[in-house]
């Protein structure tokens, strides 16, 4: 097999509506969103009215995951902020994991595009400032930039701007690196037989779960720091 390798995603052609082009990663992000929305609608309409007091298998799995995310969020930011933040973190974890599953099937994951990870990081940046302003008021939030000494104000502003950029580049770099190593492995003739199946457990599954966990933990840590001033 020859080597198709590029950092930018390729453009796909769609012949409907007079032929337009979208990139591979936009297609994969929209597909993952549609799968999550349809799954959520099916669970809400068909399964939730039948939930019992003593749960059976499917209900127990869903309750375990929701409870894990909710208790983790509450232990990091407190119970007032985790009413809104716990569902959002669950959604972020779901979309990152569904994209990681796409990576196993050969579709290019949406996190290998810097636009996607930068959008998630900018949402985190807005959440940090918004929670700080909502709890403390606008003046105290601005005064928190001069906290140790007023001389360090440019350093504090630069740190606030560097946080979303580093979050975006961390996830982009990790998942792109895993994808490149797997593509290089597929193009070697002899190692094509069983080695990608074994190594993709580490590169595609473990790295994706770790990066989702780190993204959520870092977002919650910075929001907690903005709330605790």
């Amino acid at each position, binding site marked *: 097999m020859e080597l198709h*390798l*590029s*950092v930018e995603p390729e453009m796909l052609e769609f012949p409907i509506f007079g032929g337009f082009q979208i990139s591979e990663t936009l297609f994969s992000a929209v597909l993952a969103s549609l799968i999550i929305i349809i799954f959520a609608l099916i669970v809400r309409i068909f399964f939730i009215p039948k939930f019992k007091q003593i749960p059976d298998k499917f209900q127990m799995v869903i309750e375990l995951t929701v409870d894990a995310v909710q208790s983790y969020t509450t232990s990091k930011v407190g119970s007032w902020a985790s009413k809104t933040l716990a569902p959002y973190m669950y959604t972020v974890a779901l979309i990152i994991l569904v994209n990681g599953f796409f990576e196993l099937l050969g579709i290019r994951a949406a996190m290998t595009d810097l636009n996607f990870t930068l959008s998630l990081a900018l949402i985190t940046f807005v959440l940090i400032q918004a929670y700080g302003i909502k709890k403390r008021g606008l003046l105290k939030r601005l005064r928190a930039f001069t906290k140790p000494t007023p001389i360090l104000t440019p350093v504090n502003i630069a740190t606030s701007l560097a946080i979303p950029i*580093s979050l975006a*580049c*961390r996830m*982009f*770099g*990790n998942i*792109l*690196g895993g994808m*490149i190593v797997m593509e290089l492995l597929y193009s070697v003739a002899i190692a094509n037989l069983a080695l990608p199946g074994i190594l993709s457990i580490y590169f595609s599954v473990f790295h994706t779960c*770790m*990066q989702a*966990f*780190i993204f959520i*933990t870092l977002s919650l840590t910075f929001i907690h720091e903005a709330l605790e001033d």
Partner: protein
Amino acid sequence: MDNGLVALAAGIAVFTSVGAGLGMGLATGKIAEAISRQPEASGKIMSAMMLGFGLAESTAIYGFVIAIMLFLKL
């Protein structure tokens, strides 16, 4: 001349992983010592370890991505 310099730059860019390997190795030593001191706190120690490794590995990944982007320009 241009191709040689680009290849050399791609080779130098991967040197960022030296710091990551050194840091993570030293941290694992301290983690093993801490778990041996108090085995019942090993859950919290492991979760702190996961977080620290993800953060420390990201600097190595930055250098790797730059090396790949240079390597594909050859």
